[in-house]
């Protein structure tokens, strides 16, 4: 068992903590002079706590978790890409089209048959769209399907 995960995390957090603490010292003194607590006091404390925590992690790391390799890692990456693309296409393509694609791809990748996956996507997209736009009168983007 290695403990690379915790060590790497510890190192990352240490860098974050130092950068966070350093940035806090750069702010100009607020108008009206320094009081007991300035804007930098609390962040400075936090940075010290996180430095201590990250050092502890590096010195006494827990054993590593099982990290996904190969195919699982690829599937994970695909899922994240789908989510980002979904957010990106939501407005240009409209809610129904983009949701059908996103839900379809996700459930297909999780093991559903492609046809059933996309039908699930389409049905859920239409139901939510109708519910939101007409039932709750909250507008979701219609995009391509917009009636001019």
């Amino acid at each position: 068992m290695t403990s690379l995960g915790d060590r790497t995390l510890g190192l990352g957090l240490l860098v974050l903590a130092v950068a966070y603490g350093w940035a806090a010292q750069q702010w100009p003194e607020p108008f009206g002079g320094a009081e007991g607590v300035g804007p930098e006091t609390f962040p400075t404390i936090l940075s010290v706590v996180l430095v201590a925590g990250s050092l502890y992690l590096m010195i006494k790391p827990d054993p590593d978790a099982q990290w996904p390799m190969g195919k699982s890692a690829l599937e994970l990456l695909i899922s994240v890409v789908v989510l980002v693309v979904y957010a990106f296409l939501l407005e240009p393509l409209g809610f129904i089209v983009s949701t059908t694609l996103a839900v379809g791809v996700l459930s297909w990748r999780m093991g559903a048959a492609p046809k059933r996956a996309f039908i699930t996507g389409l049905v859920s997209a239409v139901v939510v769209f109708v519910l939101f736009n007409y039932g709750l009168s909250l507008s979701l983007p219609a995009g391509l399907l917009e009636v001019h």
Partner: protein
Amino acid sequence: METLGFLMDGFAVAFTPYNLMFALFGAFVGTLIGCLPGLGPANGVAILIPLAFTLGLPPETAMILLTAVYAGAMYGGRISSILLNIPGDEPAMMTCLDGYPMARNGRAADALAASAIASFAGSLIGTIGLIMLAPILAKFALTFGPAEYFALFLLAFATLGGITGKNPMKTVIAATLGIMISTVGIDISTGTQRYTFGVLELYEGIDFILAIVGLFAISELLFFVEHRMGGGRDKMTVGKLTLTAKEVISTLPTQVRGGVLGFIAGVLPGAGASLGSFISYTLEKQVIGKKGKFGEGDIRGVAAPEAGNNGASSGALVPMLTLGVPGSGTTAVLLAMLISLNITPGPLMFTQNADIVWGVIAALLIGNVLLLVLNIPLVGFFVKLLSVPPMFLLPIVTMVAFVGIYSISHSTFDLYFMVAFGVAGYFLRKLEIPLVPIILGLLLGPEMEKNLGHALVLSDGDWSILWSSSLSIGLWVVAGLGLLLPYIVGPILRRRMHAAMKETPVSD
């Protein structure tokens, strides 16, 4: 007797048809959320927050909805414990021990009904406890100054990992990260821009709702993808109800003991519902002794943990409502709702927002009755939904999360942020950094800084004010214990809980 008057006012709020409808809807959705594996109560409530928000519900209705979901989720957790031997959420773990054997003996329907009744009794006891204890605690909390509050927040973080938590240092790190995220944006007291990097969207700080939804919902999806748990489960049959009134009555003492113990565990910092159901089960085993058939499908072994975890879930509302300091993940999410409704949580809520507090408490009572009524006849329906495979369910849940976040601000920037939080949540969970302290840090960070500032202004910059009163010293000591105890008692308790799980006849 003044409490009773307030409670009556609360009932007047909760009994309006509009609120009653939302309580019913919440109870239903909550049960659903609870029984679906992979959709815990904290997760489910988090996804509903943006919806409650965009629907423009009045504060008391929004809170009633979410509290009903919370109570419902606690009920629902038992269904998959009993039928599948997979706890729907963590506190339902102990219900597997006798519930699953009962189902194997062909008494699934009885186990479900008995546990529903026990859940009801546990919740009822917990809610009565809440009604009696909360006003007293709130009155006491009014004497807290800023220094005491600062210490109290520390205590909340220190004990959040729970006595059974694995690595308290990771809780500290998580909490610090959460508070750090909360410092992004324009400082309220001085107007200094902090960590905004000139990005306009960051000026108002990072919206904790999208952080919560991202951390919980998106990371859950990623976990399912990784473990390829998308497939369905076997069909389950529930069978006929053969439970007799005599049997129900025979479990009454068990229910009362379980409910009371659970409530105490819920109120205490660092204990929580899981420990509540564990203690109730173990105590019951001790009390009944050799006369019971625990582990082989004893009905009392189903009633005790269910009464315990539902008692605890009401108990956990006590510190959340009175001090503004939640002790569990789900109550932290409920607190997020309160804050986004512009209600300052804490003892003043009992005077300034009495209608909300008492409305919620009354709704909890009504919700429980609704849940009992819902759960016994509709159990077959929930069981059917349980066989909907996650490969269809989780993408839809994710989509609902997207819709919720999008409809708050109509900005895709927030969606990217949410996905980023989801990915971060996945890595953090992999590294066993708990997510709940991050959320709590996000929520309590600003209050913590404000109280620190007030305390130091009062003392003219003398830091010793933070530990000058006996009350604050006491809080500091408990906080310290909260961090130390897991190292000392934790391994023993964990081993016991583990051993109790091992004893079950699941291997055959």
